[in-house]
């Protein structure tokens, strides 16, 4: 490179720097004297001028397929004690203000959980093979869940695949139950090269058993293999 060219280049650079100089304040950190320290309390209002808002609780339109899956899942999985609110639930607050040395405020609150009566009205907790199966729409849903499970598995995301398979299995799919079992199976995990996932032969056997009950022959042979193996 000739000396002449490099002089021109330096002049160019100087001109370029000068051109961008008005933006210096945008890119230079504020001087330490100007820097202030702000302490926020959790109750403080959010800082103004922030363009992104938090995710609204209801604002994001739900994936309709996900909504269907969730609804189907909700039919199958019922948490014990998650009955309709207010039934047999009483809160009593009693304050007593007398003590020998100090004044103590005692708040007693107790709630009576729904008793055996309420539990009897609720559907049985989820045990996939014995579930009452939803009719036609769940066939599509099972297929969808299986496909997404297979895709997750192909991506190496075994935990996601497991969740998808377990949902499909909860809707009565034998194949999904077998696949769910495989995600716990030590042999399958070793073959798929998964790392960081702990095999669980008991869970695998449980899923294979469910799949066998639902009529999947592959599960029967997998189950026989697990049960035939001496326990460590």
């Amino acid at each position, binding site marked *: 490179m000739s000396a002449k060219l490099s002089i021109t280049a330096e002049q160019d650079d100087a*001109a370029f720097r000068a051109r961008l100089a008005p933006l*210096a304040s945008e890119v*230079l*950190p504020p001087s330490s004297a100007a820097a202030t320290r702000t302490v926020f309390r959790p109750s403080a209002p959010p800082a103004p001028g922030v*363009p*992104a808002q938090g995710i609204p609780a209801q604002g994001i339109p739900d994936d309709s397929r996900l909504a269907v899956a969730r609804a189907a899942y909700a039919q199958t999985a019922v948490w014990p004690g998650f009955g309709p609110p207010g039934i047999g639930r009483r809160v009593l607050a009693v304050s007593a203000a007398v003590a020998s040395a100090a004044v103590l405020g005692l708040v007693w609150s107790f709630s009576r959980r729904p008793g055996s009566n309420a539990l009897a009205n609720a559907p049985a907790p989820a045990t996939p093979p014995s579930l009452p199966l939803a009719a036609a729409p769940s066939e599509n849903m099972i297929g969808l869940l299986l496909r997404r499970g297979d895709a997750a598995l192909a991506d190496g995301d075994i935990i996601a695949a497991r969740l998808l398979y377990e949902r499909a299995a909860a809707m009565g799919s034998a194949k999904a139950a077998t696949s769910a079992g495989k995600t716990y199976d030590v042999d399958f995990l070793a073959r798929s090269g998964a790392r960081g996932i702990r095999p669980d032969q008991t869970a695998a056997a449980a899923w294979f058993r469910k799949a066998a009950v639902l009529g999947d022959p592959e599960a029967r042979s997998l189950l026989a293999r697990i049960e035939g193996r001496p326990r460590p």
Partner: protein
Amino acid sequence: MSVAASPERKCPIIALASTKGGVGKTTLAYVLATEMTRRLASKGTPGMPGAGRVTCIDADPNRTLAQVLRLTDDRLIVCVESDSDRLLTDLREAQLESDLVIIDLEGTANQAMLYAAGKSDLVLVPAQPSRFDVVEAVKTIGVVRKAADLVGREIAHRVVLSRTPVLRQRVSDHSRSQFVRAGLPLLPVELVQRAAFQSMTYTGKPPWRQDGGGPAAANVTSLTDAVLSIIGLHSPTGLHSARLVAANEAHETARPRAIAARPDVRPVT
């Protein structure tokens, strides 16, 4: 006279900028550089001034790009460690000897970012699907747009969503819509969260050398296609740019269908 229009301008420059750290600037720089040398090498046009070289200018004082480039045996990648004082000189020299220049910047607003943006054909702003990243991307692109006004030309810029989960998550969709609402142009291809991009930082092996038919390699392929299509449209089409486009087209036709069928492209709504 505008510096940008000076006749010695040679090859395209891509800058990776973000006022936030840890968003994937270095990862993106590295996969773009290695993918481009692969394409340029397969094009095989010896005797050209750039000789298929890609120069990576690491203007990040942490020197992360330089660290990973030390691990690679790719002889077509030149690495220059730079800072805001030397950046313009380094850029000029790099443009003379390569077919593409990629600048990796520090994850803060700084002078080097301003200069890099002022010289670039394309500024890529990686951002993860989180609120912090949306805010910082807005800032970064604000600086780029003002720089474009001051240098008197358009500077193409895109937000590249990075580390997006493989499976669809509502928060990612929400972040995408936030970028769109903030008026930021999104690259239609995202850098997906893949183990290959992490193991690369230890081994220096780009995805196509780890598993050429794998999802990470396919992701890089479609991402590079998207990037090059923007450069092709916006750069003053010189010899080198034409070569890049030709290399890219040759690559397009040679690409096996299996890979083409699984690009990690998500429609941006």
